[in-house]
Each structure stands twice: as structure tokens, then as C-alpha cells.
């Protein structure tokens, strides 16, 4: 949950003391009032530019991000970058609060779902003005455009990601199953879940009923969408009832995780049934899947998401996340420099690998492809298996969707704890969703 770590909090450098005891009070006062006495008695830390950079992710991403930031600081001695991160849910709430209070971090990691709201709310800086230091020439124009609102470049995509079914390779084999191939269907998936449960004694995977993302893929596999082009709901209560009936039956059979575990999901891999050793698979985005490596000692593999019964793919490539700069940042140029470094620097790219998805900078993608190691290579290869076989991504979801993700989970809780039928919960959800999108 709210795992928020601040690497180093900036503190006034303590002066070398005169006579220790006499100096104690004076020093405290000095620190309070001036906050700037350096070792030589005159130097000031105030000359340094301090940037705040926040993002969401797991410890693996944290280690690599920190290494890249250290390199950035080494290259720019005058800039001090404070990083902090949290799990997605906690991050989302904290950032919204900061932004509303006019205290948005200088550089922030953003999700597809946040761009519209943050840009239209005036929180983000138009990056076009930072062209000299932030180079976007090497970006796929299509992906770059996903960071635009009303023609202005408010954010730059950091990587390309797609959903995947992550599975415990050993358990999968123990159940006598073949690695899933592109084009396998939701019925194939359900059969596999049952088989794993029967053969290994643990559920086949996380109950995907709580996940709006999984529902979207299922829906797209039937040629529908979460939202229409007019930004209204693209499905009916019947559709949602069918989805929840499907997952609820699997849950009752023990083929997917029980309600007690599903309810603990909070966007971190540590709290998923797969991460806790209580299921054999999980549906997630490919970049954070690296976090399972530390949790599943027997090894994991990535499989494409199931398709519709007629083979229609529901899965799609989406910009995995973005970087944006606060509109009221005191150091827009240095901030843009940091963004540029994270996206365009060769050495940074080597450190970061695919931890935020496969890079969108084309020459960097080619450069690092050969050198990708371990799980980064797994992600790269996985994306290659679905390349060219997916339908184009939907347009960015309307801003109310951010709250609806949570509502979706809550309403499904009522189904998995058997307090409502799938039909009742689906109708509840539709009522709430319509109210949310209207306002």
C-alpha cells in the first residue's frame, strides 16, 4: 500500500561547529532562520536547483530509476533531484491532492487516464516551449500525439506497453498445459484456469472480474469498446452481467482466486495472488510484470491476452506512461532537461531498460534491443509476438473514468462476496458510471 519513500530529504548542511556546546542553540536558530550556512560559513545550498520527481511503480523500477537519476545529477552538478514513489492507487490520490493544492512536483509520471484531466485543469506545462532541451524528433508521431490535448504537447510518452497474462511457468507445466499462443480465446483461458486448479491445487489465476482493464479486452474481443467516440459508455448492463457471470462462475469453481484475495488488490504486484504464491497467473501490464520475478522463485512467463471466440483481438498497445512538467514549476528548463534525459539519453536507456515499457524513442529502441537482458528481453520478445496482430488503441478515456476504475472493483466485490447477483451489481455500476460521466 502507501509505500512512499523519499530518497533524501534536503536539509540545510550543518555548519562545522565552533565550540560545540555554545554553538548548539545558535546553530539550531541559524538553521531555522537562514537555512543556508555551509561548511565554509558562506556557501549556500540555495544556489542549487532542487527538482521533485514523482512516479509510481515497484522496487525494481525504483532501483533503476534511482540509478538513472544519480547519473543525471552527476552530469548536472547544479541540479538535485528528489524522487519519491508509491503504488499506483496511492500515487494517484497523492498527486491529485498535490496538484489541487498548487504543489505539483516539478516532474511527474502520468497515466493515459490522467492527461486529459491534468492538462485541462492547467496543471501541466506545454512542452513545446521547451523544445531546445527536450527533443522529441525520434518519437513515433502516433504515440507522441497521445500526450497532446487540444493540440498542445502536455506530456511525453515514456514507453509502449500492452497487457499480458503473467504465469508461473512451473505450475503451468505441472498442469500439463502448453504455453498460450496468440489467438487463444477466453474459453481456452477458462479451461486452462480450471485445469491448473485441478492439477496443482491453487487457483489458475487472479479473478479478473474486478479489473476494468481485463473487461475492456474481453469487450473489445467482441467488437465493442468501453467508451464510444462521444465519450459515453460503449456497453450495456447485459454485457457487464455476462462478464461478471463468467468470472463469478469460475470463482465459485475455485478456478480463479477467492474474494478474500481479490479484495486485497491495490495495484502492487506484491498483493496479487500470484505474487503471494496463491495462484498461478495474473493479468497485468507487461512493464510492471518484472516485479513478479522476485516473488515467484520458480520463474514466470508472459502470454498474450485471450481473444474473442472468433479470434478478434481485444488486446492493444498503449503508451504505458507519460512524463509531464508542472505548469508552475520554478525550474521548467531543468525539469524538461530531466525528461529529455530519461527519454533520450543512451546511458539512461541502458539503465532503465524496459521498466516503463519498451522505449518510444525509435533509435534508442533499436540501440537497446540487442543489449536487453533478462526480463527486459522477455518483454521485448513478448511484444514482438503480438506486433502487427493487434487492433489500434482506443482514444484516451474521459476523465470520469479514473474514479470508475475503483467503482468497478467495489461493485465486483459485491458479486464475489455473494451479496449481489452479477445483474444487480452491473446495473448499479451503470447507474454510477452514467452519473460520473455526466458531471
Amino acid at each position, binding site marked *: 500500500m502507501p509505500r512512499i519513500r523519499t530518497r533524501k530529504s534536503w536539509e540545510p548542511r550543518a555548519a562545522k561547529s565552533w565550540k560545540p556546546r555554545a554553538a548548539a542553540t545558535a546553530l539550531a536558530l541559524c538553521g531555522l532562520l537562514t537555512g543556508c550556512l555551509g561548511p565554509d560559513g558562506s556557501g549556500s545550498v540555495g544556489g542549487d536547483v532542487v527538482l521533485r520527481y514523482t512516479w509510481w511503480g515497484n522496487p525494481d523500477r525504483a532501483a533503476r530509476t534511482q540509478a538513472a537519476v544519480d547519473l543525471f545529477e552527476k552530469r548536472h552538478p547544479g541540479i538535485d533531484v528528489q524522487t519519491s514513489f508509491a503504488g499506483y492507487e496511492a500515487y494517484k490520490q497523492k498527486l491529485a491532492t498535490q496538484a489541487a493544492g498548487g504543489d505539483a512536483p516539478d516532474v511527474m509520471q502520468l497515466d493515459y487516464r490522467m492527461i486529459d484531466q491534468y492538462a485541462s485543469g492547467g496543471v501541466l506545462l506545454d512542452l513545446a516551449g521547451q523544445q531546445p532541451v527536450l527533443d522529441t524528433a525520434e518519437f513515433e508521431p502516433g504515440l507522441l500525439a497521445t500526450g497532446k490535448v487540444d493540440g498542445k504537447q502536455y506530456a511525453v510518452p515514456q514507453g509502449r506497453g500492452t497487457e499480458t497474462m503473467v504465469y508461473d511457468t512451473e505450475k503451468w507445466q505441472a498442469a500439463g498445459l502448453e504455453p498460450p499462443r496468440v489467438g487463444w480465446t477466453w474459453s481456452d483461458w477458462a479451461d486452462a484456469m480450471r485445469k491448473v486448479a485441478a492439477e496443482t491445487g491453487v487457483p489458475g489465476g487472479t479473478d479478473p472480474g474486478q479489473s476494468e482493464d481485463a473487461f475492456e479486452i474481453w469487450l473489445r474481443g467482441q467488437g465493442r469498446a468501453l467508451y464510444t467516440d462521444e465519450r459515453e459508455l460503449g456497453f450495456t448492463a447485459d454485457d457487464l452481467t455476462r462478464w461478471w457471470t463468467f468470472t463469478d462462475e469460475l470463482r465459485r469453481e475455485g478456478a480463479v482466486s477467492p474474494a478474500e484475495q481479490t479484495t486485497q488488490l491495490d495495484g502492487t504486484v506484491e498483493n496479487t495472488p500470484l505474487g503471494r504464491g496463491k495462484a498461478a497467473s495474473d493479468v497485468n501490464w507487461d512493464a510492471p510484470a518484472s516485479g513478479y520475478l522476485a516473488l515467484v522463485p520458480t520463474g514466470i512467463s508472459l502470454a498474450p491476452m485471450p481473444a474473442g471466440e472468433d479470434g478478434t483481438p481485444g488486446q492493444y498497445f498503449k503508451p504505458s506512461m507519460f512524463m509531464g512538467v508542472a505548469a508552475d514549476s520554478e525550474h521548467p528548463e531543468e525539469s524538461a532537461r530531466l525528461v529529455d534525459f530519461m527519454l533520450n539519453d543512451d546511458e539512461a536507456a541502458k539503465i532503465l531498460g524496459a521498466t516503463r515499457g519498451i522505449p518510444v524513442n525509435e533509435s534508442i529502441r533499436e540501440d537497446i534491443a540487442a543489449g536487453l537482458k533478462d526480463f527486459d528481453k522477455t518483454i521485448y520478445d513478448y511484444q514482438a509476438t503480438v506486433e502487427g496482430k493487434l487492433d489500434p488503441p482506443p482514444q484516451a478515456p474521459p476523465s470520469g473514468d479514473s474514479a470508475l476504475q*475503483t467503482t468497478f472493483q467495489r461493485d465486483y466485490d459485491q458479486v464475489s462476496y455473494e*451479496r449481489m447477483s452479477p445483474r444487480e451489481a452491473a446495473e448499479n455500476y451503470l447507474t454510477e458510471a452514467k452519473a460520473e460521466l455526466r458531471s
Partner: protein
Amino acid sequence: MTTTHVPATARGKAVARPDRPPRRRRREGAAWVFLSPWVLGACVLTLLPMAVSLYLSFTDYDLFNAPRWVGLRNYTQMFTEDPRYWRSVLTTLLYVVIAVPLQLALALLVALALKNMKRGRGFYRSAFYAPSLLGASMSIALVWRAIFNDGGTVDNLLGTGGWVNRPGWALLAVALLTVWQFGAPMVIFLAGLQQIPGELYEAAEVDGASAWRRFLSITVPMLSPVIFFNLVLQTIQAFQVFTPAFAISAGKGGPADSTLFYTLYLYDRGFVASHMGYASAMAWVLLLAIGAVTAILFRTSRSWVFYASEEDR
């Protein structure tokens, strides 16, 4: 400041006059100087935000765009169109009714046990008070979650599965966390118990009253103002419970909305769904509700709270 340079004649006058108005004024001035940090704080950090929140409660405000006036819509929506709102009200009431009496009973029981203890009283008093110091913190709530989670301590010992993952039990787990923090009311009870004159007990004993009789006829009435004080304080606190439920349910009020306390839903509306106007309206309703409950408690207290001073009248 100015008073230090008062002319000699005036100073002499002031000393000479028995009612001394200038010095009183000086004292008032000093009082204001010492009060000013608090007054400033109250205005800037309490009154102003309250006024803003009252205004916001009549608007639609998503944190990012300017607030839009919607009149009473937030209030009508809350009462007529939002089943989750009513669920949060019921959950909170249920919690108050379970947690507060349990906590006070335990506090009184331990206070009684400690009252006559000769040795080690200081140690036990500190030991029982410690949870109250730690209580409001996120870390304790997270530890609680680990203990009551499936695969946690309680699960291993009792084999009942995780409490925080079961809708019927999660509320009880949160209530237990509150009950466990009975240190503050306990200390107040202890102080109250020591005020009761020992002769009353001696006299009762001479008359052959049993321990239970003495408790009911002496301890409870003599302690009733303290019981009342604790009841009001803990009730007000219980209505605002937030941290434990937030930590235990990862901010969602789960499982299946079973720990969706009023404040948690308020937070959810404000900071997750970005409906600050609605959240503000909820906050004002909570304020009025707590005010009403406190007023009711005061009203009923006339019939059961006994103040020693009444005796003299």
C-alpha cells in the same frame, strides 16, 4: 511595549488607585500577545478553511477547474441518489455502537484493577497507555492488517481465516483496534476514581454492602461525570474514525464496503473521484450530526450524571 514608558505621574496614579485600570489594560494586551499565535492559527487554519468548505459544498468542484455553483444538489444527491452514502452512515453508526461502549468498559475495568494496585502501577499504567500514543498511526493499522490478514497471526492461531478479508468480520477487527487503545479514557478514569472519598466505601462496607453493590451505588454515581466526559469524547472521535479502515482496506473501505466509514467515503469522493463539492457537503452533514449526537448525550446526561456540588444546594 508602550506601557514601559508611562510618565512617572501616571505610574504613580496607577499604583495609588485600587482598581488599577491601566494595568488591567496592560494585562489584556499581554494576553492577546500570548494568544495571537493561537488566534492566527484558528483563523487561518480552521475558520477560513471551514468557510471555504461551506462554500464548496454548494458547488461542483473537481480540484482542477473553477468551482461551479449547483445550489443544494450535492445535499439532495447524497440523501436521495447515493446508496453508498447510506451504507457509510450505517457502517459508522454500527461501529460507534460497538467500539465506544467496549472501549469504555475495558478502560474502566483496567482502571479499577490498577486503582488498588500497590506495586508496578506505574509500569502497567504506561503499558496500557502506550497503544493510545501509537494508535492513530498508520504503522499500527498496517500491523493490525498483517495480524488479521489471511495467513496472519489470528488466522494461524484460530484458523478462522483472515478477518479483514471477510465482510462480516472486518468491522470488528477495526473496532478491536480502537478498543485496544483504551489508555486515554483509562487514565481519566483512574484520576476520577482517586477523587472518590474512601470513607464512602468504608461506611458501605460497615453496612455490609457487597463489592458489586459498592460499585453500583458508589463508584458509578461518583464517577458519572468522568464517564460522561469520556463517553462524549470517545463518541466524537469514533464518528471520525479513518486511519485504521483506510489502512486495513487499502483505502477502499472493503471488503464489499464493510468498512466504508463515513470519513473514508468522504475521502473517496473528494480525492479519488475528485468531487470536492460533494465531499465538503458530506463533511458539513457530519459536523451537524456529531453536534446533534453530542447535544442528545448532554440532554440525557441530566438524568444520570451526578455532580457532587449538587448535593450542597
